[in-house]
Each structure stands twice: as C-alpha cells, then as structure tokens.
C-alpha cells in the first residue's frame, strides 16, 4: 500500500514538474512573440516623443504618490516627479497625516496654499483635511492632499483617485525613481490600442547599485550584493517573461503598485484599492477585469517591455523575508477572495488560464517543494534514494532554471529593455547569480511562502513595516 502511495506521489510530482516546465516554455514563447509584436508597434523613444509631445490629443495623466513620514526624501522625490517628460500631467501627493516635517517642507518649498475643495468620495478613503496648490505657476502641476491617517498605501491611493481629474492615473510610491520617458512609453500603448486600455504595467527594477543624479538614474547597474542581485534577476524574469507573455493574450494578472497606469473611470467603478487587502494591486486589477466582463465591455491590458521605474528593494535576508511573507499572504488572500474567477471562462483568459496557473504553479509549488524536501530527508534516512536518478532529475531542474534565466538575459539584451551603464559587467553579474540562485535564493523564497501561508491560515495579525531604505548612490 505504502509503495503504491509512494509511486503515485513520485509520478505526480514528476508530472507536475514537467507541466510547470512546459508552462514556462509557453510563457517564453509568448513573451518572445509579444516582444516581436511590440517592437513592430513601438518605435524608438524619440519617435514616440515626436508624435505625442506636439499633439493636443495626447491623453492627460495624473500621478498619484502617497507619502507618510518621508521628510528625508520628499523634496527630491517631488522634484524627480516634476522632471518627468510628458506634455500633460498633474502630480497628486497624498500626505497620510505624516508625523514628521513632510507637510511643512512641501508647503515651504512649493509655496502651497489651501484651495477650496468639494471632493466626492468616489472610492473609500479616510477623510481629506485640505487640498493645497502652489501660488507659483511653475508648480501648477502639483496638488497636495492632506488627509487623516489611513495607515495603508491603498488608502492614500484612493484619496488620490478621488482628487484625480484625468482619464488615466498612474499609481506610484513616492520614493520610486521614474524614467523620464516612462509616461510616453506607457501612453504609446494606450493611444495605439483599438480597444479601451484599462491598465498598463511598466517594467520595474531595483535601484540598489544604480547611480542617481537630480532624481534620475544616470548609471543603471546590477546591485553589488547578493540578495538584491537575485531579486534583480527575478524582477527581470517576472516582467519580461511572465507578465509580457500573459499580456500577449490580454491576461495580465497584476499591475505592480510601484508603477502602473489605470483607467480612472473603470478603477472607480470597481471600487478602487482595498485598504484591508495585503495585495491591493492584484485585487484591484481583478475587480476591474470582473467589472468589465460583467458589464460586457471589451478591454485591453498591456505590459511595457522597457524599464520605466526603479525602486529600492530589500537589501538583506531579514527584510526580504518580511516582504515575501507579506506577498505570500497576499496571494493566499487573492485566491480565497477571487475564487469565483478561477477556472471560469466567463472571465476570459484571466479566469480560464492565468488564475488556474497561479493557483497550480505559484500557490501550490512552495507547498509541494517543502513536502518534497521533507520526503527526501525521510528517504535519505531510510536509504530509499536512488542517487543516480535523483542527481539526473535535480540536474534537469537546475539546468532548466539556468536556461530560463539565461533566456531573460538574452531577451533583455536583444530587446534593450534596460540600458545598463556597463553592459558586460552587468550581464556577467546576472549570469553569475543565474547559477547560484537555485541553491541560495530559491529555498529562502520557498520558506517565506510557506510561512506566509501559515500566518494567513493561523490568522496571525500582520503589521506592515516599510522596507528600510539605504538610499541610492548619488553622483558626486
């Protein structure tokens, strides 16, 4: 009996692995196809600028950036946002009742004064105390919203959505460094779409290791320490293979909260961000898709294959674990809250394909890996391991994961997704971590995912702690 169970388990895991690998290959194929299609449709940055800068038809965008106790960096960050190259945008900084000098600095620097407001609370957020604008014409793009403390980024973003006056809004973190061409790249997809574009995801990378001048990344580089280096590779894989691949069949499952563009009207009608959610960005996107499908409207979701935003990621294992545990809880929550979408063809490829994929290959994988690990230990102690077969199977998985990472490096190189300052060094570093990742980084992620699931099941309260920023290197 035990032997039968043992064999069933082994073949099940083998079948699962082969299916997983096949799905990765499918994504590789799809992302390559999407890139080919996009490279036909997206010309170089200068051409995009030529078309959009001079045209009064270029859609206006609101950039929403919630801030809480950011006195150290707020002025640099707002200046960085002001320097974005786009003809028609407003910046909405939402102060979530900071207890430091954030508000004071903003008022003094930009000569802000209170203006009358009568904001309809289209989506749920804590009450707004005042709205401020600058008395100087050069800062007329800036709107500062001072609100009661909500404690979550989602609450601040919702307040920004309530104030926002444009058809599209971009949600970002106040400490993100945005590429000057980012809005052009995103809006190019919007103006070229024959179907209503409800969301555009931008490629986001780690700013650790980059050199920044006047709020802009002037020298893009791969981080020098291992933990951020692993994450850089992971981000590249996630944006350039996974998201780009899914976007080619209009089934993008997530638009990152760090930098994503949304249709304001659809976001409002879907209820905006949910401040109680651990994965508010995925949650909102799925609600937007649900709304569009339930009302019978056609829509489009797209991914920009070029880097648009830089963010500082966790610099050590402890912070990384905290972040990934939160993400795992978020994933569990999404799966339980949006279960009606799963395997439901009514919701198009997202319901029929992507969410089942996420459930089977992203949600279950860490559990299966942990089980497999424990099973392996038991087999070692009972002498039940066929070492030749084990090494061959392990070799296959290892080589396959290296193949995936090398593919993304190749993809990045040929599509010029990132303009690395020193390409040789950057690619060499990325190749190096490719070989180390399965041994060092992957086990940590598996551990964190299982911890996150456990915390969600055991209903442990989670306190969101922001990542400790070390700051980016500034050019001397």
């Amino acid at each position: 009996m035990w032997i039968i169970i043992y064999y069933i388990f082994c073949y099940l895991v083998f079948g699962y692995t082969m299916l997983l690998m096949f799905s990765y290959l499918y994504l590789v194929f799809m992302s390559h196809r999407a890139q080919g299609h996009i490279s036909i449709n997206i010309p170089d940055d200068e051409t995009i600028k030529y078309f959009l800068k001079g045209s009064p038809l270029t859609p206006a965008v609101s950039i929403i950036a919630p801030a809480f106790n950011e006195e150290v960096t707020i002025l640099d960050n707002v200046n960085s946002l002001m320097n974005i190259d786009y003809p028609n945008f407003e910046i909405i900084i939402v102060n979530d009742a900071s207890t430091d000098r954030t508000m004071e600095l903003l008022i003094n620097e930009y000569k802000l004064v209170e203006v009358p407001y009568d904001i309809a609370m289209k989506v749920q957020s804590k009450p707004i105390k005042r709205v401020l604008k600058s008395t100087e014409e050069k800062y007329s793009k800036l709107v500062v919203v001072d609100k009661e403390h909500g404690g979550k980024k989602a609450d601040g973003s919702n307040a920004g959505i309530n104030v926002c006056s444009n058809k599209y809004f971009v949600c970002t973190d106040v400490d993100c460094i945005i590429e000057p061409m980012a809005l052009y790249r995103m809006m190019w997809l919007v103006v070229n779409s024959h179907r209503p574009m409800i969301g555009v995801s931008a490629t986001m990378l780690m700013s650790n290791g980059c050199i920044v001048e006047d709020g802009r990344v002037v020298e893009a580089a791969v981080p020098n320490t291992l933990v951020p280096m692993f994450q850089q590779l992971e981000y590249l894989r996630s944006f350039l293979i996974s998201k780009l691949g899914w976007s080619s069949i209009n089934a993008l499952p997530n638009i990152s909260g760090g930098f994503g563009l949304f249709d304001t009207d659809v976001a409002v009608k879907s209820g905006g961000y949910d401040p109680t959610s651990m994965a508010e960005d995925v949650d909102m996107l799925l609600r937007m898709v649900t709304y569009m499908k339930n009302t019978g409207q056609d829509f489009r979701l797209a991914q920009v294959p070029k880097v648009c935003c830089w963010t500082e990621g966790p610099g050590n294992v402890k912070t990384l674990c905290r972040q990934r545990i939160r993400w795992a809880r978020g994933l569990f929550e999404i799966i339980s809250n949006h279960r009606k979408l799963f395997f439901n063809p009514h919701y198009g490829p997202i319901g029929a394909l992507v969410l089942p994929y996420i459930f089977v290959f992203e949600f279950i994988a860490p559990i299966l890996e942990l089980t497999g690990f424990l099973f392996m230990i038991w087999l070692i102690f009972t002498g039940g391991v066929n070492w030749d077969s084990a090494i061959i199977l392990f070799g296959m998985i290892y080589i396959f994961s290296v193949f995936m990472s090398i593919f993304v490096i190749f993809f990045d190189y040929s599509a010029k997704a990132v303009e690395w300052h020193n390409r040789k060094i950057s690619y060499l570093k990325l190749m190096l971590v490719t070989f180390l990742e399965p041994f060092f980084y992957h086990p940590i992620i598996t551990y964190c995912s299982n911890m996150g699931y456990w915390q969600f099941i055991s209903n442990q309260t989670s306190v969101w702690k922001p990542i400790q920023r070390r700051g980016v290197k500034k050019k001397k």
Partner: protein
Amino acid sequence: MSTVSIIKYYFNLFLAYSTYFFQYAINIFADYPAEIKVAVIVTVLCIILILIMFFALLALSHSEKKKKKLVQRFEKKFGPGMDYMLSDEAEKRMSKSEIAVVFGIDPENVGKEILKNKREKEAFIDVFYLRFITEKSDYANRDNITSLLYLFDVPNFLEKEVSLRSMRKKVRYMGMIRTFKLPISPWVINKLLSSKYLRVQRLAMYSNIMLSSDSDLDYFETDFFDKHCCIKDEIELAYSLQRRRNNGRKLPNLARWANLQKNESSQCMFVRLMRRFQELEYCEQLTELYKTQPRKKKLIEEISRTWGYLHYTEGERLLIDALLTQPDDTKVAIMHALTRFATGKALDALLEGFQNTTNPHVRFEALRCMYNYGRKGRALFRKLEKEAKESDKKFFDFFNNPITLDKIGLDKEQAYHPSVETVYNG
C-alpha cells in the same frame, strides 16, 4: 571560401556534434526508466539552447559594436552637414551640388553611389533620423532635405526595404518615409494598403494623405474605421491634414466623413478634427447628425463643443432645446458651448441647468458658465451668490480663491480635453 559557406560548414559541424552528444547521452541511459530518459533529453536540449543563446549574445554584441563604430564615424563625417541643413542658414533652396559641398563630397560625384552598402545606408538614416525628429526640422527647408536624401539614395533604399522586407522593417522604414515626407511610388502604397497588417495599412494611408496633393482620400467615403479607430489614428490624421493645410491646400469635407462613418468613435474623431482645423463652413452639415443620432452621447458632446468653439450660433436653439434632456457630461459640454456663443439667449437655460440637477459637478459648471456669460451672466451669478443656501456656498468659494478663480475662465480650457489643472472635484 565565402561567408555563407563558412557559416554552413560550422552549422553542419554544430549539428553533427549535437546529434552525437544527444545520442551518446541517451545511450548511456538506455536501461533507465522513461522519466529519466525524458529528464536527460530535457537537460541536453536546455544545454544546447543555453549554448546557442550564449553564442547569439556574442554575435549580437559584435554586430552592435560594428554598427556603433559606423554611426560614430558618420556622426563625425556627416553630422556637421546635417546640422547645417536643419539650421536657419540653409533656408534658401540649394542645388544638389551645393548640398554635396556641405557634406564634403566632390560635386562631380553627385549622382553616383556615395554610401557603399546597406549597412552604411542604415547607419546614415539612423544618424539623420535622430536629428530630424526635433522641432528644428519643422523650420528647415523641406526641398533641401528631400534633395539631401536623394543625394544619398535614401528614398530608393527605403522604398525597396518597405516593399520587400519583414514586417518589422516595413513598419520601421515606412515610418521614416512618412516622417521625412518622402514621395513613394503608388504601387508600393497600394501593396501596403492591401496588407493584412493594420499598422502597415495605416502608415501607407497617412503617407498617401500627407503626400498626394490631389488625392480625394476616398478611404473615408466608406465606413473605413469600422471598429478599429484609436487615438493614434487621430494624431496621424491630424498631422497629415496639418501638412496639407501648410502646403496651402484646402482640407476635405470632414463633416461629410463624419456623416459617412457608422462607428461613434470615428464620427467623434472627424468632428474633433473639424474643431481643430476650425472648419466652420461645414458645421451646418453636423445638424443632421445631431438630430438623427441623439442617443450617441459622446457624439453630441463633441458636436456641441465644436459648435461652441467655432461660434456656430445657428446651432444655439438646438442646443438649448436639448440641454435638459441630455446626460450630465453632455449637459456640461452644451452649457460650455452656449457660454462661448454669449448671445444672451441662453441665460435662462443655464439657470435651469443649475436648478434642475442634483449633480454638484453640473451645478458648478452651470455657475461657471454664468460667471463667464458676459455682464448679464455675471449679474445673475452675483444674485445667486447672495441668495445661496448654506449647502451651495461651497461652490462660490471657488470663485473667491485667486488660484481656482484663475482657472475658471473657459479660455483656459483646452480644445481637446479638460484642463489638467483641477478646478472642481465634486
């Protein structure tokens, strides 16, 4: 040995080695179970793919380096000449030999092939294209630019690439032809117009519109856009029409095109273009569209805005009659149009617009229109301000604050979309 045969030789060698390695690996595991064989095959395939990608990376990097060097050389050699051609100094019409001198070419060589091969032509086009996509090019003498491109045989090269090459190159070079405003043979245009690929079709169409002086633009005589109309189409069409106008030609009847389309977004596009190019003489033709399709909310909005913007006062009665029957967003567009007419007849309608709704946004806009509606409108506004209920006082605060008051005037509003500077968020 030629390069092709060298490549063939190495490719065959690579194939032979991989097959050998593959067979060797499988033979070793001949007695193992199926899953192990599968694992071995997957591993070997992955290793081969990794190696291919690695070598492709090296090859890519090598060819890029070569191209970069060539571009740098051309920057040095032709850059100053290109800058001169885009400067004010080259405002006068120049002959081909004069242009050749600017580029350091012996005038005797005019008519001969200056750029030797495809790679050089590509590099030259890239260098010039990046210079060309600046505001400077708008003021440059276009005839000189065309002569310059002919001197380097660019138009023939681009046309050949467009008619023969892959879709990616077709789009890239077609874009360049369109940007440089280069003439293109009708058979290439026709070939591209019948392409299955939408973007190529569009590029061909806009190039044709931009270049042909006598074309009747019969694309729009049918329901051309069907469901495939996007903002980019409008931007492209606007550029093409602008170019026609700059060349002193009359624009086609946009209102007629609007009438011929079935799709609402296409209709709106042509109405907006009328507004942009201030085609007042065709406004009357929109009346029928206005009367027959009252349920197309976006279309009614655009027609109202266009009439208002172009001061087509004959439409005022229609707008006043429709004001209270339309949805809120359309009401706002109609009120703005009536305010722009400022004939004095619409004051009652604006007052009704303020009183007959609970939507704060519409109420605010009605007040804003009264405020901007001449002396009588301002007087009515002041009266309402005095008599305002407590709940309505918030509206009047916007008219007393210098920052928001600055944006209250309708002249601040852009013709195409509302100003990004928020006045009222209710």
